[in-house]
């Protein structure tokens, strides 16, 4: 266990990132082309969440609401030291406290960050568990640590890991000849952009319940990845995956922090084994701030060459990033891919420091890279006196890798530019950044975004038909709040000619057919097509029954409005329920999301536009309006899609203006592990947000033409505010969060420069 812990802690990150970004065409079997679907009655329209009422009335059981017979409460002891050798852990006094049923050391060897799990206890109630924690005796030998990126980079800084330096070069990227490109340019500029560490802060903190039935283990987990939790837990506990079942029904947000196995799940499983009773652990807000992941910081120095005719002759990026004791994020993707450029070079360095391990955070790397690259695009445009939107349009490409790669299967970014510019009133911008006067300055800005989100080939789903006329749609995916349950109902109902309420949706159980993690905007374009495939097979089967009942060929039959009818004589029909009545037993139809055809790049796109006001006396930024236009292929359900976009924009605004983890160099601890000091946007800070969709059906991505939408709205959402601020005050803040102190400092610098 201890060994595994260290391995987990030190693991090279980018695991998830590479999974999202990998070339999924490699093993693709023949793909499915999308139907035009002009006559869809549900898909592409507005359907309310089928479980919405349950959630808002408090009836939906979240992990922490579940109570099992004999269940114990588990608590975790965490290290106050940023680095220490654990000389001894004595849990005997804790174990001897009446009511305590298990107490276990959870670490051997070194502590690498403040907040790392040291020991865990399970007791009959919370109070006893807390008392037990105080009785755990831990002898630490504190060691030198480093919790700031700049200090970690210094010569002679305390080394985080014995076996490697704090700063390590990672795989870079290169195409063309950047030096030649810079030589051809009319102007070359260099700018550095910084993004700070962001904490996921889901409304529901991480929680797990573990219950053993002999050799079998059931886990209720607040997770974005039931199958990964099962498989990783099997490895840690050294038991077969087939003996573990992971269940997750409702969840209050994850944003990446609940991807894969977290420490509290392991602790719950081990304590439950020891105590022979079920154990529930729910993390505190403080723990949630320290140990379940974060978005790595980045320091991105761009150099770009541009010609007066708008050509970008070369781009280079020197990137530093830190994800604490795990790897940082790659911020280079937007520069490599989005805008036309032949000559590109990336140098990428990772910095280790003694802070909590990173975890993918809603569009890892792309959020940071888009803040940098889209800010840099505006500064490049300004260098040649171009309108930022015209500059982007001039560098539009329909092939990936900045026009040097393979064609995008579909790309609606150009349409997003048009729709967004019109909705925000692009003409209202200052022609010259900072062109306005007075104390309050208005500005309009825009930013483009790219993401993957094609979905996972091989995703499976079942449609089960019952002789009594009822229907189930089943998939081992999880609804992490985006509306997956509703999407499954919409797709199944659309295909079977029913209403969403007629479908019983089953998900969130690792015993169900495989689906990928809910990360990388994979879920809808994986699960939707698999359900569609299964439902189409069910329809094919039912058509034969209906054909024999109606005595017309199956090809002559229409399905809709809960009826099978004769195309040429609609009066001649048989109800759906009656056709199912012909089944002698329940029937299961197995569907699969097929592969992605070779030779194309599958990406989602978005363009966001914002209008802001900056108070130049106080440095406070007020966002007036955000327009978010997204190309995520066919939108399966407008209602949940709009929510997704509003949520992404809100989160991006929050990080642009407020959120930051603040570390203390002396104590090595985070000073703001709570929601008072780690500031998140409140309802008073949220402007009018207009979600719009390009709604292009991708012709070959899957049978629905749908792409993901989870991450895309988050990607340009911080950059767009920074660019609008630039347009308002004529100085680019280049560092998020853009708190008043930074805005005031930037304005002062501008004054001095004048």
């Amino acid at each position, binding site marked *: 266990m201890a060994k595994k812990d260290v391995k987990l802690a030190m693991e090279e990150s980018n695991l998830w990132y590479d999974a999202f970004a990998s070339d999924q065409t490699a093993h693709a079997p023949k793909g499915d082309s999308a139907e035009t679907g002009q006559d869809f009655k549900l898909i592409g329209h507005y359907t309310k969440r089928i479980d919405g009422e349950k959630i808002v009335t408090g009836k939906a059981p979240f992990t922490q609401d579940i109570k099992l017979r004999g269940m114990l409460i588990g608590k975790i002891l965490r290290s*106050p030291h940023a680095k220490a050798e654990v000389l001894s852990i004595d849990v005997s006094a804790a174990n001897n406290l009446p009511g305590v049923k298990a107490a276990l050391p959870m670490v051997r060897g070194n502590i690498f960050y403040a907040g790392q799990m040291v020991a865990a206890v399970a007791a009959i109630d919370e*109070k006893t568990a*807390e008392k037990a924690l105080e009785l755990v005796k831990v002898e630490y030998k504190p060691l030198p640590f480093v919790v700031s990126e700049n200090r970690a980079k210094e010569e002679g800084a305390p080394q985080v890991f014995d076996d490697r330096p704090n700063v390590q070069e990672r795989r870079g990227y290169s195409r063309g000849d950047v030096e030649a490109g810079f030589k051809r340019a009319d102007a070359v500029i260099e700018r550095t952009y910084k993004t700070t560490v962001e904490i996921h802060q889901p409304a529901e903190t991480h929680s797990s319940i573990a219950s053993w039935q002999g050799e079998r283990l059931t886990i209720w987990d607040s997770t974005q990845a039931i199958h990964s939790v099962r498989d990783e837990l099997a490895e840690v506990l050294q038991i077969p995956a087939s003996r573990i079942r992971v269940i997750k029904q409702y969840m209050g947000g994850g944003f990446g922090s609940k991807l894969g196995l977290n420490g509290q799940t392991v602790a719950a499983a081990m304590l439950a084994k020891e105590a022979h009773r079920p154990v529930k652990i729910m993390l505190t807000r*403080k723990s949630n701030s320290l140990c379940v992941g974060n978005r790595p910081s980045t320091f991105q120095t761009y150099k770009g060459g541009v010609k007066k005719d708008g050509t970008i002759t070369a781009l280079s990026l020197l990137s530093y990033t830190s994800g604490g004791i795990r790897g940082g994020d790659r911020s280079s993707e937007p520069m490599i891919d989005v805008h036309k450029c032949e000559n590109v070079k990336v140098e990428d360095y990772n910095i280790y420091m003694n802070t909590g391990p990173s975890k993918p955070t809603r569009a890892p790397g792309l959020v940071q890279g888009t803040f940098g690259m889209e800010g840099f695009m505006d500064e490049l445009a300004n260098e040649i006196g171009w309108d930022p939107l015209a500059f982007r349009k001039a560098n539009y490409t329909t092939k990936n890798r900045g026009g040097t790669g393979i064609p995008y299967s579909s790309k609606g970014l150009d349409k997003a530019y048009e729709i967004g510019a019109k909705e925000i009133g692009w003409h209202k911008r200052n022609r010259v950044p900072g062109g306005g006067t007075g104390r309050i300055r208005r500005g309009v800005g825009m930013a483009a975004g790219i993401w993957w989100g094609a979905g996972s080939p091989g995703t499976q789903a079942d449609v089960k038909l019952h002789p009594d006329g009822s229907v189930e749609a089943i998939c081992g995916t999880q609804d992490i709040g985006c509306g997956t349950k509703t999407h499954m109902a919409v797709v199944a109902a659309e295909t079977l000619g029913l209403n969403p309420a007629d479908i019983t949706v089953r998900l969130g159980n690792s015993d169900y057919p495989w689906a990928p993690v809910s990360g990388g905007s994979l879920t809808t374009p994986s699960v939707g097509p698999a359900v569609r495939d299964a439902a189409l097979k069910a329809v094919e089967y039912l058509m034969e029954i209906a054909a024999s009942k109606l005595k017309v060929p199956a090809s002559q039959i229409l399905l809709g409005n809960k009826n099978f009818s004769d195309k040429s004589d609609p009066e001649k029909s048989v109800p759906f329920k009656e056709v199912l009545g012909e089944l002698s037993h329940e029937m299961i139809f197995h569907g699969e999301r097929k592969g992605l055809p070779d030779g194309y790049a599958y990406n989602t796109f978005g363009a966001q536009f914002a209008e802001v006001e900056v108070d130049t*006396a*106080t*440095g*406070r930024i007020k966002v007036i309006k955000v327009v978010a236009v997204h190309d995520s292929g066919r939108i399966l359900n407008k209602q949940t899609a709009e929510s997704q976009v509003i949520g992404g924009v809100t989160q991006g605004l929050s990080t642009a*203006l*407020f959120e930051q983890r*603040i*570390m*203390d*160099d*002396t*104590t090595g*601890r985070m*000073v*703001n592990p*709570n929601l*008072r*000091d780690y*500031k998140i*946007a*409140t*309802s*008073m*800070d949220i402007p009018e947000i207009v979600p719009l969709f390009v709604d292009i059906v991708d012709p070959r991505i899957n049978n629905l033409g749908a792409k993901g939408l989870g991450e895309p709205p988050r990607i340009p959402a911080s950059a767009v505010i920074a660019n609008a601020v630039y347009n308002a005050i004529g100085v680019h803040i280049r560092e998020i969060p853009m*708190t*008043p*102190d930074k805005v*005031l*400092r930037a304005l*002062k610098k501008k004054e001095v420069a004048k």
Partner: protein
Amino acid sequence: MKEFKIAQPQSLEQASALLAEKSTGYFLIAGGTDLLDEIKNTVIAPEVLIDLRSIPGLSGIKTEKTHVSIGAMTRVAELAENPVIKENYPGLVEAALSLASPQLRNVGTVGGNLCQRPRCWYYRDVDTICRKKGGSRCYAFRGRNKYHAIFGGGVCYIVHPSDLAPALISLDADIAIDGPDGKRDILKLEDFFALPQKNVRKENILEPGHIVSEIRIPLPKKGTKSTYHKFKERGTWDFAVVSVALAGTVSNGLSTDLKIVCGGVAPVPWRLKKAENFIRGKKLTEDIIKQGAGQVLADAKPLAENAYKMDLLESVLPMAVSSML
């Protein structure tokens, strides 16, 4: 969170006697919005909570001959909605509505707001033993100090978190304190708060067994105006980075008795006497006010991360004054 007992005294004398029994471990609870946070985060571990809600007569707003009386247990929301307060002390209403969130204002009390503990993140970190908790150093001094004091620091660099205090001091309010012997002291609210140099463990002069029972605001002179301008980083539920409370009479664009008290800049509500003196009797132009602010800012001792508070003070003060003209 450790187990604790709750005492429900029926009178101030009883509460005071209980509180005087032990120097540590006995805490008063009013609304509890902050105290519970401290308990849950194990910053404090009370043995006994003395519940002021069980004492009759501590809540409510009454107009007396010379002053308006506000019971210490009056909830902040009640204060903000009270017609007498609204009519006479608009600055106090602005301060009340600027603090916390509607939910917290419905529970939090006036007395509790004045006696709340600092939000300094080192004080609030259970693993950090700073001077305020009996340790030997102030971690903010060379640490993370964006939200810390630019005036009056030295031993400890907290800022006083109360929004009501600057507004009440600008209105020349008094505070009533009941002692264990049944004696009631009335003193200037301004003198109630104490710098860390006096006793770093406390933010005021309350002695063991003493309880804040009432606030008295003099009935306003004719033509008195008041306002409260709070600069916070986000739209709601945020403490003041810099706030300015003003009260006084203004006519023909000048004032002879304007009081200026700031929040968010010092370990106590910070009276800007030099600025008051400088602008007294002068035409209140933006330039004059900025010059007044400059008089005060010359004494500021910013730390590595909080010098921007000086700029904010220079900006917020003229905004506040011009809103009164």
